[in-house]
């Protein structure tokens, strides 16, 4: 058995049972899908995880819920630590992906400069941001990924500012591959992971990650909610190659975002400006469609 295969025996997997994630957490599904994609590609990985719920997932020393080598880093540092790990991997011709698994706080906020620098250097790493639109680990404060209207412990009346467009920021670095992922679209998820795994250099994946605890939603609604987000255009799933060409993976179908808001108690039905959200969705979709038409990703990945 090769060393790579050893990771994928039936006793081992990327996310082991018995981890500490809340019920309905998007991370649990996302990590499982990531593990499957790695197995399908006969690849292994080292996870590099900053301060966030994702490192609590590991549980307490000396046990761990991660079935792969895993490093906990400081909040802002995962892409820089990953740069060091990937460098030594490459200098020693070793197999395996180096994958950052980071929250939106570590990505959009405190770690943005570190991430931007790693992207500019085109480090040979995969960076996955599981975006639950909140600081989950510290009990639910706003981040720059929190959407307008959402109540958090630091925006008790609902956030005024809208969500930062991290995908445009990453695409502007002209990295080889950037894509958004939804756990409601597992085939698309698998396809994008396989594209990412077969691409070299900096790859950025943004996963919309439901968080019943922070979203004040029902755990069993998690998948339905992120499906609504894709269909309505709140969180479109698409790919950007080299910051130049675009492909929309699942066409939004005009679903009204109202239900998405209604099913989460972080949004106040009486306060949320659904019309503004509808306009933002249609602007977002139009802009993406224009990009995908004018700069289509022709190559089949």
């Amino acid at each position, binding site marked *: 058995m090769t060393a790579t295969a050893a990771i994928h025996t039936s006793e081992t997997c990327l996310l082991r049972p018995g981890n500490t994630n809340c019920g309905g957490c998007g991370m649990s599904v996302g990590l499982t899908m990531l593990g499957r994609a790695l197995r399908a590609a006969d690849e292994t990985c080292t996870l590099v995880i900053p301060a966030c719920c994702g490192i609590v997932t590991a549980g307490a020393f000396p046990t761990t819920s991660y079935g792969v080598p895993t490093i906990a880093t400081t909040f802002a540092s995962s892409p820089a630590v990953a740069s060091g790990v990937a460098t030594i*991997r490459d200098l020693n011709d070793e197999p395996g992906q180096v994958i950052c698994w980071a929250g939106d706080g570590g990505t959009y906020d405190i770690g943005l400069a570190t991430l931007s620098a790693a992207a500019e250097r085109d480090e040979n790493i995969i960076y996955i941001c599981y975006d639950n639109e909140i600081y989950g680990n510290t009990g639910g404060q706003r981040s720059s990924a929190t959407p307008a209207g959402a109540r958090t412990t630091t925006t008790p009346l609902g956030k005024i500012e809208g969500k930062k467009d991290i995908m445009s920021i990453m695409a502007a670095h002209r990295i080889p591959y950037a894509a958004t992922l939804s756990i409601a679209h597992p085939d698309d998820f698998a396809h994008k992971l396989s594209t990412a795994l077969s691409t070299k250099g900096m790859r950025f994946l943004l996963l919309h990650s439901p968080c019943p605890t922070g979203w004040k939603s029902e755990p069993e609604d998690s998948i339905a909610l992120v499906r609504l987000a894709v269909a309505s255009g709140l969180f479109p799933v698409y790919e950007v190659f080299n910051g130049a060409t675009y492909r929309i993976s699942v066409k939004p179908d005009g679903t009204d975002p109202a239900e998405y808001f209604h099913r989460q108690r972080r949004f106040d039905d009486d306060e949320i400006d659904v019309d503004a959200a509808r306009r933002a969705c249609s602007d977002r979709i139009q802009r993406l469609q224009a990009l995908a038409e004018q700069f289509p990703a022709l190559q089949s990945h």
Partner: protein
Amino acid sequence: MPLQVVTGNHAAGYALSVAGEANRTARGVACGIYPITPQTEIVEYVARFPFSKGRVVPVESEHSAMAVSMGASMSGARSFTASSSNGLAYMAENIMVAGYYRLPIVMVAVNRTLGPPWNIWADQGDTLMLRDFAWLQFYCETNQEVLDTTLLAFKLAEDPRILLPALTCMDAFIVSHTQTETELPEQADVDRYLPNLDLPHRLHYDEARTLGGLAWPHEGLSMRLELEEAMKRVPEVYQECRESFNDVFGRDPGDMIQTFATDDAELILITSGTIATTVREVVRQRRNAGEKVGLVKLKMFRPFPGAALRDACKSAARVAVLDRNYAAGAGGIFCQDTRSAFQGHRNDVLIQNYLTGLCGGDVTPEVIDDILSDLRSRSAAGDPMWMGIDSGEETLQ
């Protein structure tokens, strides 16, 4: 061995580079680098060094520089970086983490004043603010000592009985930018001195181990105890590293604490870095005049060599500690540790603190004269004395 006229920064850059190169038949070397005056030439040096198996990553901040070095080190490579002043303050979070991760990273620090006011000159406040992290700390006096201590630091840090990162410090400009004759060792000798790094807790791509996750209090406590044991082993392992250095390079890199004329000294001045050069000269003159004065240079500050220090001062009734650093609200940092080293062992020694050379001020022989007069005239220790301050009375009148 070739003797060259180089700056302290050049000596440091050379030492880091040849140490990294010496790991080329193992897992190689990688580091993150970021410039800051007066350290910049060090990172420029390593950036142009033709490593056989290595990569220097020019990152966007000191915080990331240490992060890249940690990633490399956790992967079993040799690693290092360099910084100074605000750079160290910005890097502090990851400096702390590297220590508790027990990663044998060597960092050269050029001691520079923390601002404001903006000031690029020598002051040890920057590295001393890191004193309670799990790093070894060495303060050097000359370019040669910077080079030798940096090489020795790798051997000590990587020793399986220690496994702790190490800081080698030098005074801004006085050492970093002053050219002196320095022996730069051949790569082949450095290869002999620094064997391939084999980090026991490094990551393996096919081993599912989580580094740095949560640990309950009793586990955390046992890790702190292991750290304490490693710190206690440093003096002994240091001597081994010093001896083997002498064997390979034919030169003594110097002891953890270095004494001059202390054997029968009644007054002893304790200091570090380049202030020691001036004090040594004053002590030499006073000895010629028959005065029983001596010098103790503290090269190692972490772990604090308390026993060796007490031993070096055994003949003295009065001790002056000269600090080129100031812990606001508490005084000089070397003095605080000196006092705690004596407490309970020898309570009859008068230990007086003198703050001198702060923010890059010159510490002249006249300042040392003033310190000796003050120390001699005292009946008890008092508040830290601020030396070399022109009271400005004449101009104020």
